[in-house]
C-alpha cells in the first residue's frame, strides 16, 4: 500500500492533545478492570502450584478437597481437551500441568469454592505426589549435552543433532563476508553479555470471571490485550466451538505483552463448567511473578570491527535465549533486530533457544530486541571509547537509511534514524557539561512494528454523532487516537465521536493489542471505514439532489456538488444527512476489515546522564532524553507517554530488575519488594522529543510507537555507567552489588 501519493494534509484534529474519552472513568474509580466484576452466585477459584522447579507428577488425590464444605469443583489438566496444535497445547499445559511440572509455580490443580478462603483451604487438602527431577535455569548450562532435559523431542528441524535436547530453535540472518570485514578493521572487539529475565510488571494481576451454562454456552470477562486470542485459546483448550464463547475485555491495568496469552481463563471456564456456577479467579502478585510471562533471559556474544575513522566493517552476534520451559521463537526477533540500526556490508547473526525450568516466556515490549541491541550498542560504544571517537558521530556515519539493505533482509523505505540522531546531536542535552563522576551514554533502538487483522464498524447516528466499534483493548489512550482519526477523516469535531471496545461477538477477529499496532492498524481501518461511510453518505445526497454520486464530494464534514455538471446545491452536513437517513435508505454505517501491512519500522535514540556511587555501587539517573520517530503523532501526549514509560521500564531492566533463582530453581524474589521496579524518587524528568518522518504505509503517516522506547535504555545506561565509573559491565541488571564488585576489581 502506498499512501505517500496522498496529498500532505493540514490536520485539524490529528496532532491535538485532546482529553481521552475514558479519562473520567479512570480518575474517579468507575472504570471496571479484571477483578472488579462480580456475578450472582459467583464462586471463587484458587490454583495449586508446584513447589518444585522440575518434577514428575506421580499422582494427584483431590478427594479430601472435594469433600470440604463449600467446595464446588476441582479440576486438573485432565479436564482440558487433548487434541490441538502444539503451540496451543503448550499454553494448555502451562495453565494446568500434564505429567510433569516444569517450573516453580507451575499450576497443578484448581478449586472453586463458596469463598476465596475456602478455596485456598481446599488447596492444602490436595495431595500431589511428585518425583523431583534435576532442574536447570541458566541458558548456557541448559545447552550443554549433560543438562537435565526439560522437555524431549521439541527441537525444530533446523537444530543440528548432537546438542542438548533443550535446544529447540536455531536461526541465522545476515549478508556479506564478516571475516573479510574483520580483516579490514583497525580494531575488532569481541564481548560476551548476559541479561536477566525481567517481568512486564503490570500493576493489575491477571483476573477473570467465567460463566458456562449447562448448554455449553459461556461468557468470559477478563483483563487481556486481545479478547479474540483469548477466545481462540480457551475454546480449543476447553473443546468448545468459538461461537459458544463470548469474551469481553475489561479495562486493562497494564500488559506490555504479558496479557497476550491465557493463564487462568481456561481454568475458570473448566471450573465453571464443572460447578455450574460463575467462577472468578484473581492472581496474587506472587502468582503473577512465579507463573506468568517474564521475558527471555539471554547470553550473547558480539564481535564488531571498526576502522579508525569509525566505519563499521563487519558485525556478528550469537544469541542464546531461553523462553522458559516451552519452545520460544523470540530469539529470531532478537537476531533480526540486533544490527538493524546500521548500514553494513557484512553482518551475520545466529540465534538459539533453549528450554529451562523457568516460567513460559510471554511477550514483553519489543520481545527479543532489547537484549540483542544492548549487546551490540555496548560493543559499538566500547569501540568508540578505544578509538576516541564521538559515539553519536559514529552512529550517524553508519546509520541505516532509506535504501539500506537491512541486517535482516528487507531494504528500508523512508526511516527516521538519521533524523533522530541529528535531533539528539542538536539537543542541549548532548552538549551539557558533566561533573566528575558522571557519565553520558547513548544508544539507538529499533522495532519492526506490526499491522495485522483488524475489523471495525463506524455508525452515523441520527443526531449527527458517530460511534466507532473496535476490538483492541485500550492500554494507553488508543480510544482517543482512534476517535481523532475518525473525526479528522469525517471532518467533524472530536467530541462528536465515541469509540467503544467490543466483545468477540460484535466484530470480526481483531489481533491482540501488540506489535505497536493499534494506532497504526486500527487507525487505518477506522479511516477506511470513515471513507466507506462517506461514500454511502455522498450516494444518499446524490439521490436527494438527483445527480451522479461521482458529482458529490466530501469536504469539511459536508457533501458538496463538484464538477462542471453537478449543479449548485448548498452543502449537506453529516448531521443533516444523518437526520434524513431513515427516508433515504436506512441507517448509515461504514466498515473495514483487513490484514494490515505497511506498519513501518521505528527507530529511537536515548541520551542519559548517570552518576555512580563508588561506595554503594548505586547508579543514579540524572537526566534522560528520548528521541523517536512517530511517523505522525496522533495524540502527542500519549506518544510521549509511551516514550517515557518505555524508557523507565528499560531503566529498571538496566539497573535492578531480575528473576533470581536458587540452585534448585526456586524463584527467590516473587514480589515488588525484592523485584524492584523504578519508583518516582528513582527518576529524573524524562524528556520526550517526537520526530515525524511519515510512514508511507499509513494515510496520515502513523508509525507504531509503543515498543521501540524500551530498547535503547539498557545500552544507553551501560554506556553511561562505563563512562562515569570507568568500568564496563557486561551483565544486566547493573545492580549495586554487581557495580560494586566491578569497581572493587578495578581497584
Amino acid at each position: 500500500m502506498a499512501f505517500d501519493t496522498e496529498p500532505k494534509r493540514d490536520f485539524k484534529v490529528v496532532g491535538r492533545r485532546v482529553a481521552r474519552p475514558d479519562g473520567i472513568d479512570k480518575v474517579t474509580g468507575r472504570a471496571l478492570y479484571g477483578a472488579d466484576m462480580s456475578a450472582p452466585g459467583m464462586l471463587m477459584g484458587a490454583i495449586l502450584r508446584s513447589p518444585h522447579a522440575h518434577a514428575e507428577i506421580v499422582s494427584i488425590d483431590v478427594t479430601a478437597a472435594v469433600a470440604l464444605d463449600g467446595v464446588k469443583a476441582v479440576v486438573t489438566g485432565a479436564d482440558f481437551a487433548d487434541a490441538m496444535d502444539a503451540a496451543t497445547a503448550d499454553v494448555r499445559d502451562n495453565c494446568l500441568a500434564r505429567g510433569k511440572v516444569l517450573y516453580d509455580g507451575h499450576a497443578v490443580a484448581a478449586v472453586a469454592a463458596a469463598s476465596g478462603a475456602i478455596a485456598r483451604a481446599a488447596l492444602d487438602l490436595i495431595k500431589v505426589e511428585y518425583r523431583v527431577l534435576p532442574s536447570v535455569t541458566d541458558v548456557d548450562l541448559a545447552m550443554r549435552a549433560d543438562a537435565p532435559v526439560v522437555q524431549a523431542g521439541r527441537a525444530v528441524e533446523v537444530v543440528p543433532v548432537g546438542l542438548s535436547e533443550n535446544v529447540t530453535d536455531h536461526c541465522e540472518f545476515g549478508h556479506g563476508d564478516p571475516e573479510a570485514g574483520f580483516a579490514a578493521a583497525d580494531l575488532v572487539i569481541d564481548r560476551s553479555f548476559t541479561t536477566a529475565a525481567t517481568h512486564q510488571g503490570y500493576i493489575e494481576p491477571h483476573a477473570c470471571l467465567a460463566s458456562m451454562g449447562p448448554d455449553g454456552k459461556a461468557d468470559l470477562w477478563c483483563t487481556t490485550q486481545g479478547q479474540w486470542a483469548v477466545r481462540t485459546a480457551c475454546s480449543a483448550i476447553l473443546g468448545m466451538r468459538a461461537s459458544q464463547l463470548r469474551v469481553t475485555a475489561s479495562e486493562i491495568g497494564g500488559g506490555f505483552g504479558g496479557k497476550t496469552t491465557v493463564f487462568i481463563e481456561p481454568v475458570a471456564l473448566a471450573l465453571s463448567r464443572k460447578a455450574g456456577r460463575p467462577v472468578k479467579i484473581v492472581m496474587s502478585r506472587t502468582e503473577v511473578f512465579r507463573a506468568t510471562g517474564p521475558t527471555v533471559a539471554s547470553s550473547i556474544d558480539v564481535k564488531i570491527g571498526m576502522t579508525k575513522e569509525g566505519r563499521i566493517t563487519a558485525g556478528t552476534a550469537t544469541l542464546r535465549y531461553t523462553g522458559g520451559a516451552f519452545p520460544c521463537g523470540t530469539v529470531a526477533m532478537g537476531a533480526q533486530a540486533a544490527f538493524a540500526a546500521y548500514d553494513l556490508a557484512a553482518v551475520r547473526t545466529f540465534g538459539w533457544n533453549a528450554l529451562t525450568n523457568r516460567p513460559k516466556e510471554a511477550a514483553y515490549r519489543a520481545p527479543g530486541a532489547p537484549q540483542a541491541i544492548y549487546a551490540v550498542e555496548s560493543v559499538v560504544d566500547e569501540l568508540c571509547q578505544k578509538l576516541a571517537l564521538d559515539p553519536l558521530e559514529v552512529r550517524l556515519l553508519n546509520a541505516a537509511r532509506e535504501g539500506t539493505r537491512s541486517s535482516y533482509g528487507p531494504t528500508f523505505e523512508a526511516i527516521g534514524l538519521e533524523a533522530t540522531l541529528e535531533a539528539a546531536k542538536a539537543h542541549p542535552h548532548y552538549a551539557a557539561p558533566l561533573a566528575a563522576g558522571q557519565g553520558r551514554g547513548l544508544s539507538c533502538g529499533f522495532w519492526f512494528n506490526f499491522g495485522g487483522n483488524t475489523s471495525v464498524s463506524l455508525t452515523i447516528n441520527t443526531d449527527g454523532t458517530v460511534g466507532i466499534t473496535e476490538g483492541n483493548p485500550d492500554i494507553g489512550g488508543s480510544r482517543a487516537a482512534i476517535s481523532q482519526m475518525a473525526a479528522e477523516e469525517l471532518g467533524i469535531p472530536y467530541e462528536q465521536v465515541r469509540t467503544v471496545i467490543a466483545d468477540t461477538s460484535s466484530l470480526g477477529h481483531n489481533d491482540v493489542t501488540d506489535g505497536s499496532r493499534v494506532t497504526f492498524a486500527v487507525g487505518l481501518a477506522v479511516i477506511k471505514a470513515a471513507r466507506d461511510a462517506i461514500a454511502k453518505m455522498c450516494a444518499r445526497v446524490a439521490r436527494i439532489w438527483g445527480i451522479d454520486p461521482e458529482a458529490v464530494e466530501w469536504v469539511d464534514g459536508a457533501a458538496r456538488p463538484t464538477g462542471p455538471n453537478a449543479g449548485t446545491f448548498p452543502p449537506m452536513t453529516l448531521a443533516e444527512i444523518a437526520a434524513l437517513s431513515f427516508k433515504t435508505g436506512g441507517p448509515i454505517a461504514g466498515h473495514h476489515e483487513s490484514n494490515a501491512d505497511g506498519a513501518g519500522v521505528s527507530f529511537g535514540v536515548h541520551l542519559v546522564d548517570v552518576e555512580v556511587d563508588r561506595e554503594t555501587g548505586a547508579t543514579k539517573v540524572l537526566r534522560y532524553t528520548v528521541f523517536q520517530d512517530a511517523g505522525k503523532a496522533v495524540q502527542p501526549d500519549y506518544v510521549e507517554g509511551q516514550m517515557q514509560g518505555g524508557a523507565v521500564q528499560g531503566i529498571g531492566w538496566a539497573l535492578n530488575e531480575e528473576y533470581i533463582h536458587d540452585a534448585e530453581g526456586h524463584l527467590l524474589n516473587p514480589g515488588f519488594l525484592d523485584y524492584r521496579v523504578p519508583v518516582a524518587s528513582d527518576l529524573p524528568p524524562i524528556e520526550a522529543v517526537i520526530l515525524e518522518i511519515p510512514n508511507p504505509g499509513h494515510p496520515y503517516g502513523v508509525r507504531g510507537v509503543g515498543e521501540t522506547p524500551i530498547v535503547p535504555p539498557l545500552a544507553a545506561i551501560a554506556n553511561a555507567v562505563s563512562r562515569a565509573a570507568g568500568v564496563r559491565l557486561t551483565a544486566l541488571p547493573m545492580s549495586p552489588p554487581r557495580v560494586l564488585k566491578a569497581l572493587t576489581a578495578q581497584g
Partner: protein
Amino acid sequence: MKTVPVSTTINGDAAEFICAPDETLLDVLRNRMGLTGAKEGCGTGDCGACSVTLDGRLVCSCLVLGVEAEGAEIATIEGLATGDGLHPLQQAFIDHAALQCGICTPGILVAAKALLDKNPDPSETELRYWLAGNLCRCTGYDKIIRAVQAAARQMRSA
C-alpha cells in the same frame, strides 16, 4: 470465623459492615461495600494501588484490617469528586495525560491529595519521595509529577 460488626464513615457517609477478623479493609471496600476504585496490585503494601485515607492518614488498605476501621473516617477515590465536578487533581490528570492504563491512578490520586492536604506547595523531590510508594508501570511518572504540580498550583491560587 465469626464476623464482626463495624461502624465507620466512608466518604462522609455513615457506613456499617460486618467482616471476618482477618479480612482486609481493601477486601471490605471492594467485596462488601461495592467500592472497587481501590485496586489490589500486590496485597503486601508495595504498590500503593489500594491507597485510602483513614482519619486523614494515607494507608495501604491491604495492610489494614476491616475491624480497625471501627469509628474511623475512610476516604476513597470514589469520594474525591464532589457533586459539581472533578477534584483539581482529577482534572489535571486528564489534562496532562497522567494516566495510561489507569490501574494505579486511584491510589496515586488519593496519595497526592493526602500530600497536598499537608503540604500545598511540595518541591518536585518531596513529591517524588511521597509518591515513591505508588508504583506506576506505564508512564515513567513524568506526566504524573507534572499533573500534581499543576493541580497544586491551581489549588493554591483558588
